[in-house]
């Protein structure tokens, strides 16, 4: 089997979560990489929607911004930004919202707003973007983010985007229609919500990763599923597709 990096494993594990034919609202960065990898491997008919209004985008390289020209050129339809949020997202037409996170808590709530106090932040993060409504309206949400105790925190400095709120059925009490986060994919493994408490539980480790490592990089006491599984290692086909995508992207953007 080929060598691969934890980042590659994370992207490939995330891509596998996307079913062929699913309509997917894609955030920029890791989610976009994973979603396009899915499209180039097992899910050729996945429909990728970016908040710039490109519906059914099929970029040959990863977009650096959510509004790169190739997204429009390859899309089935280009609609105004307000329409993508109103008819397509709020209208209930998105199967999967694919998002990243700067901070995440045990109920998969997300902070992308500030580190520190909102009125006098230590670090000002970019903010909400489309995430609060993507997380509310997509039929389900998949999160992709690297594992670190600064990311997987005991308590968020700010709740930008809701996951399972305070756990249990508290999300349903908010009146949202989507089912919420189905999985959090990291460079160490996969976390999924407990059916009852909705707290995240470690359900998969990527090959070679230990429970101890995952716990060390999670700031809350991480529960482990009794049937903890090991993610299948990347296949040659997956790795080749991902590396070719990254190479095309680097050539196009001059990015590493």
């Amino acid at each position, binding site marked *: 089997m080929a060598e691969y990096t934890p980042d590659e494993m994370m992207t490939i594990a995330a891509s596998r979560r996307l079913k062929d034919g699913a309509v997917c609202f894609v955030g920029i960065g890791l989610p976009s990489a994973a979603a396009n990898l899915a499209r180039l491997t097992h899910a050729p008919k996945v429909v990728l929607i970016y908040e710039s*209004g490109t519906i059914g985008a099929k970029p040959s390289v990863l977009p650096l911004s959510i509004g790169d020209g190739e997204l429009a050129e390859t899309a089935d339809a*280009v609609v105004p*930004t307000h329409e993508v*949020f109103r008819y397509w997202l709020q209208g209930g037409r998105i199967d999967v919202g694919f998002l990243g996170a700067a901070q995440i808590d045990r109920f998969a709530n997300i902070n992308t707003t500030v580190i520190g106090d909102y009125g006098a*932040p230590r670090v000002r993060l*970019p903010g*909400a*973007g489309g995430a*609060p409504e993507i997380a509310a309206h997509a039929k389900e949400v998949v999160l992709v983010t690297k594992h670190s105790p600064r990311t997987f925190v005991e308590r968020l400095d700010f709740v*930008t985007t809701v996951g399972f709120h305070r756990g249990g059925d508290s999300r349903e009490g908010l009146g949202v229609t989507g089912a919420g986060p189905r999985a959090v994919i990291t460079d160490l493994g996969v976390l999924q919500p407990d059916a009852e408490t909705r707290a995240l539980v470690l359900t998969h480790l990527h090959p070679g990763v230990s429970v101890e490592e995952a716990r060390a990089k999670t700031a809350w006491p991480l529960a482990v599923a009794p049937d903890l599984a090991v993610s299948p290692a990347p296949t040659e086909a997956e790795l080749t597709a991902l590396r070719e995508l990254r190479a095309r992207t680097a050539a196009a953007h001059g990015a590493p």
Partner: protein
Amino acid sequence: MVNKHISLKEAIAEHVHDGDAVALEGFTHLIPHAAGHELVRQGRRDLTLYRMTPDVVYDQLIGMGAAKRVVFSWGGNPGVGSLHRLRDAVERGHPHPIEIEERSHADIANAYVAGASGLPFAVLRGYAGSDLPKHNDRIRTVTCPFTGEVLTAVPSIRPDVTIIHAQQADLAGNVQLWGIAGVQKEAALAARRVIVTVEEVVERIVPVPTGVILPSWTVNAVALVPGGAHPSYAHGYSERDNRFYQAWDEISRDRDRFRAWMDRHVLNTADFEAYRRSLADG
């Protein structure tokens, strides 16, 4: 008929005043950078700046002290990282403290639609479980008079001036833009005054797919500024300068380096063409 074709310098001088609420829109595509530079050159102050994604264009305005208040939904450098001038203003009050009003993309997009529609507010299903409404008393609720459901209400946005960059205007001042359309049509129709910079002035507009047309009578001024979206792009005319966005991270990280860059390339250039030449000179 008033000739709407004037220079960008004249358009900004005539239509944008200190203290105005201004929207420079363009969702990654067609960001009106040339107009942003001209606001800096003319030293506009105390502006309320609306924009879904502040991007480099507002990072420059904020860093140069033009902003009193910024209303936005995602304030990063797309695909790169932070907007350092925005962060410096929010985190450390440099060059002066600014007010920020944070909303979500869905909120601001709906608020422009409501503004264009002559309505005082927009209704959406927004912010469920988010802390944002705790810090913004302009995110309220409204109850459906049919189902009793409680929904989010947000005030409509009606800028004093909206400025956009488009591909084409014809001699009469009709405007066509295509590719990623963003919220520009709504931002323009929601505003009291509209300035459009264009890549090209054509004798007659030939409609293209997804072309958005603002009839000439909705536009106050049209200025020919080829490449005027740079480092953003104009579909069919240019490509996004991704390397510039990456370089901006370094340029903007340091206050002095930012200021020296703005002095050299914006304040000491007469117009956008001169700016492009000064960039090419390195």
